[in-house]
């Protein structure tokens, strides 16, 4: 009964602290729309600048025929859904093209040298002739540049092999582990963006606890019969509800942007609920070290960013192995329940995994949650409820 009474209280307070509530609920969906707007949901077309010197000086056979067919091959390269792999821009100004790559206005510059057509034809007739050459200019810090280079090289090799009758040294087949549909950059971000909705609970949960300390009402709670376990249960139930609402809103936002999930919403919600509990446990731990709302909104931002960045919500991190349990490798940043959640969400949303398939991640999240709760409750008691 005490837990229910306190649950009602913390729920009402959350509703009336509408600015924090709105921030928690709207943050992730807003990020979804921003990322969608930024990347757009279209399949990636790499911007390829082609500087073709082959046309001007090949005077024998039809002028620049091989380079023209190569450019056509690049233009015709398409994703399974028919969308083009490359957006081709032909130019004659190599310096300007390189500058565009540096500015990331383009992903790759390919220079087709003079005599390219002649070299291709010669190689078709005589395998001992020197091979035709292409020169790529790419920014190694731009992942899209590397991707564009790999794909343009593959198209070029295939095309020249076909034109010269040469055999490709390897026949590589690709089997998609996902749905097989083309994946946009936005699609790749969605699982992590959904976890962001859960991380926001860090603020609302910590606010519920710190406010009692800041306003002195913790004294009333200490005098009453409410136990720490009841207090934390009430806060957790409320925050899990809030987390699930935020997660659902973010998921709906992604769907409204054309995102197609391969997995089930119930599985997502179960993992989401467990992760929210983990975030609440971390909030309890943080609250043990803070005494005022001001401290929460300044010092408390640090753990928020730790969760955001080290859970790989923003960008991938190097995998540093920590240990292997039952054939599952655990990495250093798996100490955060949100990292395991990103992985589980990725499996559910991208590969259609069910709860059984993410059992290891779910178990890990629950074990971490229990650990954080135990430590957080002990510290919270010592720091704020000790007589």
């Amino acid at each position: 009964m005490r837990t229910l009474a306190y649950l009602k209280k913390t729920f009402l307070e959350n509703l009336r602290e509408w600015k924090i509530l709105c921030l928690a609920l709207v943050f992730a969906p807003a990020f979804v729309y921003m990322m969608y707007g930024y990347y757009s949901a279209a399949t990636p077309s790499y911007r390829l600048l082609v500087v073709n010197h082959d046309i001007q000086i090949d005077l024998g056979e039809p002028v620049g025929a091989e380079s023209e067919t190569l450019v056509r091959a690049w233009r015709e390269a398409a994703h399974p859904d028919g969308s083009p792999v490359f957006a081709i821009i032909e130019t004659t100004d190599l310096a300007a093209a390189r500058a565009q790559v540096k500015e990331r206005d383009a992903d790759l510059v390919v220079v087709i040298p003079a005599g390219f057509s002649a070299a291709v034809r010669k190689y078709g007739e005589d395998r001992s002739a020197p091979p035709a050459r292409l020169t790529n200019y790419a920014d190694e810090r731009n992942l899209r540049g590397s991707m564009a280079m790999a794909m343009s090289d593959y198209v070029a090799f295939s095309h020249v092999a076909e034109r010269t009758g040469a055999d490709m040294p390897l026949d590589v087949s690709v089997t998609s582990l996902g749905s097989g549909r083309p994946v946009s950059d936005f699609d790749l971000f969605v699982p992590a963006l959904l976890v962001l909705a859960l991380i926001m609970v860090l603020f609302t949960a910590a606010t519920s606890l710190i406010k009692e300390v800041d306003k002195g009402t913790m004294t009333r709670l200490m005098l009453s019969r409410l136990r720490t376990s009841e207090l934390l249960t009430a806060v957790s139930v409320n925050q899990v509800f809030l987390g699930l609402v935020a997660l659902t809103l973010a998921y709906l936002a992604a769907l409204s942007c054309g995102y197609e999930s391969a997995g089930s919403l119930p599985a997502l919600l179960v993992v989401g609920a467990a992760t929210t509990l983990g975030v609440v446990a971390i909030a309890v731990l943080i609250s043990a070290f803070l005494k005022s709302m001001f401290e929460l909104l300044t010092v408390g931002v640090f753990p928020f960013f730790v969760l955001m960045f080290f859970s790989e919500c923003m960008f991938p991190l190097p995998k540093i192995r920590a240990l292997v349990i039952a054939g599952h490798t655990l990495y250093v940043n798996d100490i955060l329940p949100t990292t395991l959640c990103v992985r589980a969400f990725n499996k559910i949303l991208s590969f259609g995994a069910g709860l059984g398939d993410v059992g290891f991640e779910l178990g890990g999240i629950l074990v971490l949650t229990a650990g954080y709760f135990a430590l957080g409750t002990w510290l919270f008691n010592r720091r704020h409820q000790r007589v």
Partner: protein
Amino acid sequence: MATHEQAIALRVDEISKHFGDLVAVDRLSLDVHRGEILGFLGPNGAGKTTALRMMCGLLRPDGGTIEINGKPLVPGRSRGIREIGVAPQNLVIWETLTCVEQLELAARLYDQPPRVARARAEHLLEVFGLADKARRLGKTLSGGMQRRLNIALGLVHEPELLFLDEPQAGLDPQSRVLVRDYLQSLRGTMTIVITTHDMEEAEKLADRVCIIDRGKLLVVDTVARLKNHLGASQLIEVVVDAGASQSLLPAVAKLAPPGTFVAEGEKLLLTSTGSTALLARVLDEVSRLGLHLVGVHMRDATLEDVFIGLTGRRLRE
């Protein structure tokens, strides 16, 4: 008929509390009788709030024991003792809950059923003049209303022993009367320990008064007995030229026992018994020293006189 032991609601036995080198409470012993209102007085920093926090289980004493209705109070393990109600010195209310919501919550945290909690909340809102503010959020109330709500929150679970830490601070005269009247109506049914700096309020409310200073108990008794303890139920003020009262002191020291007179600005205060006879001799001295006599006043001794007499005039904080 209740025995003496049964009549003790709160027994404090030699409790002490140190904060580093500071001795906040020094072997304080006190019995509070069931149904009485005890005024707990002391200058700033005397250790009142520390003592009070120990008495209601919010602070662990370094030594000594506390019993509530004959049962030992074990700090940390006596959480949620139904017998105790507290209205802390600082306002401790939930700002984003309405008045009725917070009273109901406080009652339910002491296991009162929802209907009882609601009825109790409505009763206290009525008593403390907050009925028309029942649906207002705590943060939207005026300072005085918040103060009244703070007291009501300590009463909502019908405790047997109520600790009020400076409940009158920040209240307007109307609110003071309202709170005082309500507390007086509880006399006999609820044991109340009230700390205050308002001597007049303590005099009006308290059955007995306890004065502590530097963590030590100085005295505990009824106000009337304390006044007698001071030596006289009346005080005589001899008013001379500004600052001249000091020049009277050597002569008065020969006439009156030590501790029964004090010079304060232009006033000389006499509190010794037989002060009327003394007055004539003091007036002779005024004349002999050629001082200008401005006036002579006689008034009843107050609790403040007792308090100042025991704790001195020097500022503490």
